[in-house]
């Protein structure tokens, strides 16, 4: 009976100590005790090779699911207004910064003000950017005031230049990307936002 009792105690000790000793001894022999606490993918980032001593940082980024060349701002491709559906479509050239995770734009809305008059523009449908995607992204916007939206598209494209254009202000920007909600109360005037492109 005592043999069983001691045998069970030995199993308890072995189950706890054997795996723990295996990894501790392995890290100790490799002189890498930090390896006990830091996941191997992150160890690649903190290794001397990756810290600017001739190492390849981009391969470390790839291991982390981040596109090393993906930190590029989206490039404007086209903006048009569809009269039949009263929607504005913005096309952007993008490269997803993530190689293993899709990005979902759940919400994008903002308000355009001209003195006391204002109207809200919002994303019609959520947009999913697949992991590692490079190409054109289409964003369709609708508005409570379709005519104002059409005029805004024309102003941004430089087709129209009404007298009130300098007073147009963007505000209450709300963006929901993968559950991260970004809100900006005041975006400033249209001329500040679009710089040289604005009329």
């Amino acid at each position, binding site marked *: 009976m005592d043999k069983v009792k001691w045998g069970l105690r030995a199993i308890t000790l072995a189950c706890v100590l054997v795996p723990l000793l295996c990894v501790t001894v392995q*890290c100790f022999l490799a002189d890498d005790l930090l390896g006990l606490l830091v996941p191997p993918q992150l160890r690649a980032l903190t290794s001397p090779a990756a810290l600017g001593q001739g190492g390849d940082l981009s391969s470390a980024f790839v291991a982390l*699911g981040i596109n090393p060349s993906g930190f590029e701002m989206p490039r404007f491709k086209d903006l048009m207004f569809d009269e039949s559906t009263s929607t504005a479509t913005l096309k952007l050239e993008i490269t997803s910064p993530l190689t293993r995770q899709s990005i979902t734009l759940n919400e994008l809305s903002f308000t355009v003000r001209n003195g006391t008059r204002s109207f809200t523009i919002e994303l019609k449908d959520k947009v999913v950017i697949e992991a590692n995607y490079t190409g054109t992204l289409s964003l369709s916007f609708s508005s409570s005031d379709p005519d104002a939206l059409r005029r805004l598209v024309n102003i941004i494209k430089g087709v129209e230049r009404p007298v009130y254009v300098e007073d147009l202000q963007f505000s209450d920007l709300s963006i929901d990307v993968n559950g991260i909600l970004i809100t900006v109360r005041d975006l400033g005037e249209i001329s500040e936002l679009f710089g040289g492109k604005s009329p």
Partner: protein
Amino acid sequence: MKRNWFALATGALMLVTVASSLHSPWWRAEIGSGLITVNADPFYTSFKVFGVSYVIPIIFVLNVGLTALFVASGIALVVYTIEQEKGYSKHLLSFGWRRPLYVVVGFVAVLVLSLHVIPLVVNTIARAVEVSTPMVPLMGSSIIRLPSNVLNIPAQVSITVTTTFTHSFFLGVATVALAITTRACHRRMSSANKPT
């Protein structure tokens, strides 16, 4: 001699709990919509950032050890049911029945402690950041608001955090209930078998 079938059920449920944990962690926290996922489990703890899974080596080996111990305890209870009349069977029961209780209580204690201790550590190290205590609710959803001075932009950034206990955890709790019943049943059977 009557058999303690609760022991067999507990042993089997312990093995099912381990198998279930490998597919569904006991507790899951999702920061954003799948951007960061924390899978806390006594048998396999991991976290996922931008679709890449990470395992902390020291926690992984502790998980492996606990899995082996839990499986051994489950087997011990099954053997106890078969060899109940043997003198050593009470050692098998003693070895097996407490394990689910220790694991479930230990897991909840570590989880609650982590949710309270981590914010204190973060607030001490990074004074610009203010993380509330507890960081996230044990179960439910909350919104973490990042202070604007951290990002240095005139915007408010908030992140949705959803936490949940999965069916694996409740399977573990059911195992504890069954293990306690096994122990109670053994005590009743022992007292009934004692000569008067």
